[in-house]
């Protein structure tokens, strides 16, 4: 049974997609785990990172299914009867190294934003049902969420065993945390039988810049303690290699000239994360 983890924060630019993809690379290639990445953000950054424009354009050109189709599979329009979808058709392999590991992706597309305009018909249940059909094929499913409260957030909560919350230790980024507290509270009220579990809060893109960063970390730890949230000991330090890796379509481990110290810090976080979710 796969461990399903949503990477979420109600603030953008905290590194959700970068962490998602690098965790996928780490477990898929270095730990021989079968990993599925679900891109649940209409900005489709994880899809951009993993696929690149040629493969992604091919999916659109050939009208192959994406995560959008999972949500819209039962929608009837003058052009479509809504005939259901075999979710496996929306899964694209990115890497299958020897040893049994693999990295697959359910990509997103901009049109997912239109789904948010018509959030009826219990669409939020579709992702959970879709993943149930494929989860036996994976050890880990990582869901890269959009940074705004919406039906997609509910869909991610319903589909997840755990939440992982990346936080960039700076003033505006930390304000995403109380928003997330609210979001989780609303969900728990609406779905009292579905307890959300938090794998933890991880400080991402840290620079050790004092005093602002130290202050932000202290505030985050305070909120975390108040909500009984775990804060990871390992931090993911800021590195230009993450941006470079995204441009090249490779992980921090394969980015040319990435510093060993940065790679080790990311590995330490990934291993602590694996321990938290029992992977």
């Amino acid at each position: 049974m796969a461990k399903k983890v949503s990477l979420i924060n109600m603030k953008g630019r905290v590194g959700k997609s970068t962490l998602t993809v690098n965790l996928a690379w780490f477990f898929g290639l270095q730990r021989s785990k079968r990993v599925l990445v679900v891109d649940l953000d209409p900005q489709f950054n994880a899809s951009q990172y993993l696929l690149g424009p040629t493969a992604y354009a091919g999916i659109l050109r050939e009208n192959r299914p994406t995560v959008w189709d999972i949500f819209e599979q039962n929608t009837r329009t003058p052009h479509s009867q809504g005939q259901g979808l075999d979710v496996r058709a929306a899964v694209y392999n990115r890497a299958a190294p020897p040893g049994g590991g693999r990295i697959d992706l359910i990509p997103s597309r901009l049109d997912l934003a239109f789904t948010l305009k018509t959030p009826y018909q219990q669409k939020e249940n579709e992702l959970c049902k879709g993943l149930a059909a494929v989860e036996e094929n994976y050890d880990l499913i990582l869901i890269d969420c959009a940074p705004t409260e919406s039906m997609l957030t509910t869909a991610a909560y319903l589909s997840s065993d755990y939440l992982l919350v990346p936080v960039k230790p700076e003033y505006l980024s930390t304000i995403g945390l109380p928003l997330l507290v609210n979001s989780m509270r609303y969900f728990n009220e609406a779905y009292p039988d579905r307890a959300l579990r938090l794998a933890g809060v991880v400080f991402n893109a840290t620079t050790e810049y004092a005093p602002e960063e130290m202050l932000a970390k202290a505030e985050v730890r305070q909120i975390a303690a108040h909500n009984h949230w775990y804060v990871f000991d390992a931090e993911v330090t800021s590195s230009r290699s993450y941006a470079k890796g995204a441009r090249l379509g490779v992980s921090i481990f394969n980015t040319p000239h990435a510093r060993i110290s940065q790679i080790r810090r990311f590995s330490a976080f990934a291993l602590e994360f694996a321990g938290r979710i029992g992977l």
Partner: protein
Amino acid sequence: MSTQQEFELLVDIAKLLKKHGSEAFEKLAQTLSSPDSSQQLAAILSATAKAGRGIGGARPSERAIRPLLAGLARTEPERSALLLKLYDDLKAKRVLPTLRDCQAFAADNGLPLIEAATRNKAVDSLVEAAVSLPKDRVEALVTALQADTPHDDRGLEGWARIILNNDHRPKKAAQ
């Protein structure tokens, strides 16, 4: 001097005489004047080639590895083709363009750790490790290498074309 060409040869010989010394020169002249001089000369050229000097300018490893991979074709044509593709792609830097890439790829794919100091030596180590693998493992390596290496231009222009192109918008979304 009968010709300009002979004069130039004499100048070259004089330069070589100055470089190697008269004693080595006279010894070589005696060797070459013997009846079996042609075999001696062939042996000298062969020894020079083994030392990696001249004779096409190829590195010793290139002369050793590629023929070995090509030679496998007699008994295992598919494995040979895969190994040659792996080797040629690596040598041409079409994949794994840096030493770090080679080291990371080896580590990611269960090959022995590469401790080479240059990319060329890392490539040799990588291919030598691949030679000992069965065909399906080599095939998996080649596949992983292609997946690991971006082939397309991931610049902003490529993405802008996709994002600004409304032709691909699904009809349901366009309602």
